[in-house]
């Protein structure tokens, strides 16, 4: 699958409290969660984000709370991919489980600036900065993770295995 979009760029330790503040966790509505995504770190994000756009961040993206509402809000806001130097472990797991593509690629993070247009072939992990023309290769997922993503998330993956 290929994705392409404009980049929103953030720094280190973007925590799940700024991705989706707890004051909005009294709902499970994806659209409502998306309407407050990144609000405490970037109040213009919701206004400016378009379907397909990409978030690029530095170290430890998604640290803090285990709230699955964080990757849900990002995905529902239209973001097609998050690229970071590293992810916090619960956020990483949650993203796979709900089908939000995420890639670790420090070289790409270094090169990409806010507003650049970036494309990525998720099956190969090849990231292209269309603005600078440079390309990068992220480590692809191990096969068992790829299988969960291919099945459409963890619940569908389990359903498939239960039927076996």
């Amino acid at each position, binding site marked *: 699958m290929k994705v392409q979009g404009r980049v929103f760029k953030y720094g280190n330790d973007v925590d799940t409290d700024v991705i989706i503040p707890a004051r909005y966790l009294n709902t499970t509505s994806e659209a409502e969660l998306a309407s407050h995504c990144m609000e405490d*770190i970037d109040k213009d994000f919701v206004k400016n984000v378009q379907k397909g756009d990409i978030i690029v961040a530095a170290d430890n993206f998604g*640290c803090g709370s285990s709230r699955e509402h964080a990757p849900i809000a990002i995905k529902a806001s239209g973001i097609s991919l998050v690229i970071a130097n590293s992810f916090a472990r619960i956020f990483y797991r949650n993203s796979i489980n709900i089908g939000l593509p995420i890639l670790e690629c420090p070289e790409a993070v270094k090169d990409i600036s806010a507003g650049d247009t970036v494309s990525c072939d998720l099956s190969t992990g090849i990231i292209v900065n269309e603005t600078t023309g440079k390309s990068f290769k992220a480590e692809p997922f191990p096969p068992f993770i790829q299988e969960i993503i291919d099945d459409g998330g963890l619940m569908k993956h389990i359903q498939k295995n239960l039927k076996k």
Partner: protein
Amino acid sequence: MGMTMSQKILAAHAGMQSVKAGQLIEAKLDMVLANDITAPVAIKEFGKAGATCVACPGRVALVMDHFTPNKDIKAAMQCKTVRDFADAQGIENFFDVGQMGIEHALLPEQGLVGAGDLVIGADSHTCTYGALGAFSTGVGSTDMAAGMMTGNAWFKVPAAISFVLKNKPAKYITGKDIILHIIGMIGVDGALYKSMEFSGDGIQHLSMDDRFTICNMAIEAGAKNGIFPVDDATRAYMQGRFKRTPVEYAADADAPYEKVIEIDLSKLEPTVSFPHLPENTRTPAEWDDRKIDQVVIGSCTNGRISDLRIAAEVLKGRKVAKRVRCIIIPATQAVYLQAVREGLVETFINAGAVVSTPTCGPCLGGHMGILAENERCVSTTNRNFVGRMGHITSEIYLASPYVAAASAVAGKIATPDML
């Protein structure tokens, strides 16, 4: 090659002789947990997957603690969703207002988790139960839903860092100071994906409550889990409480640790995390006279009876400073009752503090103590991220109950010695 304590518990639950770091395993769970924020998402996923029944209702715990007593209509609806699910599935470990406490204080207290267990919970502070010698880690709602459906979860076996705690901590040094010191040293991703395994002769000086506090904040260093060896203090805590049979695991002498970090507990000073990351730690020489507006003593980190005893020791015969709001939240009903019996609640009220029903409330900016623009709060909670407790310009200073209570009296960050 030997195994770490965490690896031994994972191997046993996967039915394997041994495991090594990086290996992917599927393991049987002893307990699966969610709360009023994460359970509704899990129940939604559960329904989406076409699941109709929970694999083992006795091994599921649902605790209504974050926005309870219901802070608004939406929060009330979320609790109703979980209550209806618990009734339909015959889940007995459903804790509503009246029985509930903050989940990570409640589950150990109720004997629902213990030594040798493998536990996942849809709450990042599930790592708290490592204090009992369990492998316990936070996950998201979908993982929790899968755990309810199948009774199993997949894990990537973590590598580990060994923390050797030596000597006896000085007066006013608690588990909170120890874990804040460690996070200050290694950073908020210093143990990313790894186990934090504690050992050393210093452990004998740490109460179970100190150990719960230390393991609770392992996630604040990015860790998968934190874990203490089982000793007489652990056994005494579980005696007459733990509902299953404890299994004691110990790390092998040749267990593979990526790093060994020695900490001389006798040298530690009261430690406070300044805004806006837990790793931004400072000791008294680096504090200043900045005025504070609020103090919170409570949470899954520091809302246990020993924490309230410390707060009462400091507040007895003293008054909370003018223009400071001091909010004290016992973590469970049992802690609350004990605090009433010991006269701690009277001490708090006489000092000008308020005492609330158990709730996570202000820790995550839910209710019961939200901060206004530019306000500062000294708190015994676990995170000081931007906007965590209210307005995005407000500031949180993470501290021990000694420092929090002394700060309430001083109107600025202080230790009891400074009063």
